[in-house]
């Protein structure tokens, strides 16, 4: 079984996000980039499938700050081959990202055939589409998203994919392989890998580079961000300020006043 995993880096929203001076994007100087959370789960799901069925996991990631760390970490976790997609201008859209992935998958030796292509279901910056359905459409493969578990049958020709629905309900779907699945969460949390193992991967492993081809200009499909600003809430909580103990006592008084303590 050969599984391709598609990764992209996104801004860490735990950090404060600053708007660039032109007001149309984030200030890159202040951004910390991390692996998109659901992509991390897609990688974990691929590694779980490899452990279960054998085979090979190939990881493709789009060039971005900190991407080498993400790829070496993927190698340390058990990915067999890691490929960095390079040569694109910064600020590419999700449609372009899917185009880069698709062209590299088609052009680079050894990436096809793949039984499964896994990627995160949705990234926090997927403004103009989602990677998984776009890649699926390009290769005319079946697509399903919001996946939280995958079981491949003995023949390797079909998979049972668990899709999440509202209210904790899940659906088990039969999917013919090869297929593209958008992973919401792996069956297990992404594994921890010791720093020493990542360093070992850095020393012994190699990140391959794949140059992106020029995409056909789909300018008329483009979406343009005209303005970006912090989401200032229309209504705001009453903020309790002061030293921690004082704030907690004030809140406790409020709760007591409402009969909640």
């Amino acid at each position: 079984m050969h599984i391709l995993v598609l990764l992209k880096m996104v801004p860490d929203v735990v950090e404060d996000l600053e708007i660039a001076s032109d007001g149309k994007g984030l200030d890159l100087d202040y951004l910390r980039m991390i692996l998109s959370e659901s992509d991390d789960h897609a990688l974990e799901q691929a590694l779980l499938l490899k452990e279960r069925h054998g085979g090979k996991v190939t990881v493709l990631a789009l060039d971005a700050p900190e991407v080498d760390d993400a790829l070496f970490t993927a190698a340390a976790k058990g990915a067999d081959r890691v490929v960095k997609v390079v040569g694109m201008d910064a600020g590419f859209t999700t449609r372009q990202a899917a185009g880069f992935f698709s062209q590299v998958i088609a052009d680079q030796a050894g990436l096809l055939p793949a039984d499964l292509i896994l990627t995160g279901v949705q990234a926090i910056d997927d403004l103009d589409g989602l990677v998984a359905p776009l890649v699926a459409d390009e290769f005319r493969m079946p697509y399903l998203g919001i996946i939280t578990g995958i079981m491949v049958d003995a023949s390797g020709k079909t998979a049972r994919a668990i899709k999440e629905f509202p209210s904790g309900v899940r659906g088990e779907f039969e999917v013919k392989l090869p297929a593209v699945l958008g992973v919401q969460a792996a069956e297990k949390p992404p594994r921890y890998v010791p720093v020493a193992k990542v360093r070992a991967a850095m020393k012994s492993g190699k990140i391959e580079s794949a140059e992106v081809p020029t995409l056909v200009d789909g300018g008329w499909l483009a979406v343009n961000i005209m303005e970006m600003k912090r989401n200032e809430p229309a209504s705001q909580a009453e903020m309790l300020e002061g030293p921690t103990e004082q704030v907690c006592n004030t809140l406790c008084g409020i709760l007591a006043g409402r009969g909640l303590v």
Partner: protein
Amino acid sequence: MTGSICVLAEQWRGRISEVTYEALALGREVADRGGVQLTAILTGCNCREMTRMLGAADSVVYVDHALLAEMVPQTCADALVQVFAGARPRVLLVPLTNISLGIGTLVGIRMGVPVINFCKDVTISGDRLEAHCVMYGGKIEATVEAGAPSGPQPAVLGLWPGARTADKGRAERDVPVTDMPVVLDDARAIRLCRYIEPEAGDVDLTKEEALVAVGRGVQDRGNLPLVEELAKALGGAVCGSRPVIDQGWLPLSRQIGKSGLTVKPKLYVALGISGAPEHVEGMKDAGLIVAVNSDAHAPIFSVAHYGIVGDVLETLPALTAAIEARKAAAPHA
């Protein structure tokens, strides 16, 4: 349908989703402002009677096919492209939920039109279409324009839950229904085998009067005992947002939000939860919401009644101690 505002109606297990009504509410506003028709599109199998629930629209297009019983993205997109073959809409609103996620992207690519996700509002002025979007987990608002070289062109807008109140788009009445035949290929069809109902948790969170919810800001599974102590002091239970559940720190039965439970406790304490729309959807109607977050700009403060900007791990024990002290000092009945 040319130039009309269209809404993809979500049906799942015999019901129209709440987000569909929100989409109809927004679609109604946009259609009325532009003096155009609002059309709801319902795909399904033997569910024509549900068209009555879409009375906020001027008309309904009903697409019936055995392969449309579930809203599988590629099959549903194939059907929608056929629906729009003769008359392209100005806007197609598609809910961004775990029922129909992916359909909008596929319709956009197959029709060769722009897609804009995370929308909470849209304005159309002449040829210009501006969508107002919430990105980066709710932290950033963006005004986004769909590229239009000449003349108005269709756009697919992925609608974020909560754009409007569902009640504004809820209307039950007979509306003109057009039955639209489609031809669908089941060669690569994805088939539902079964639904798996959620396992009952050890606690029924929907009946708890106080809930202490944790998010990524709690940093480590080892800090959960501090959270449990606060919940115990409040006489409530611990629950969590999606990242905490995905990390395996709490079971799925404790998840609040779009994919988990919707709760309405008297008190909801959100600790280290940013307030992404997916989470807010499940707790926004709590009686009193208190949020603690280190980021003063966290969207959770827009739904909270009281907020504390600070370190969750510092606040937690202090709040528990304050509550315990007050309880100890209170005269016993």
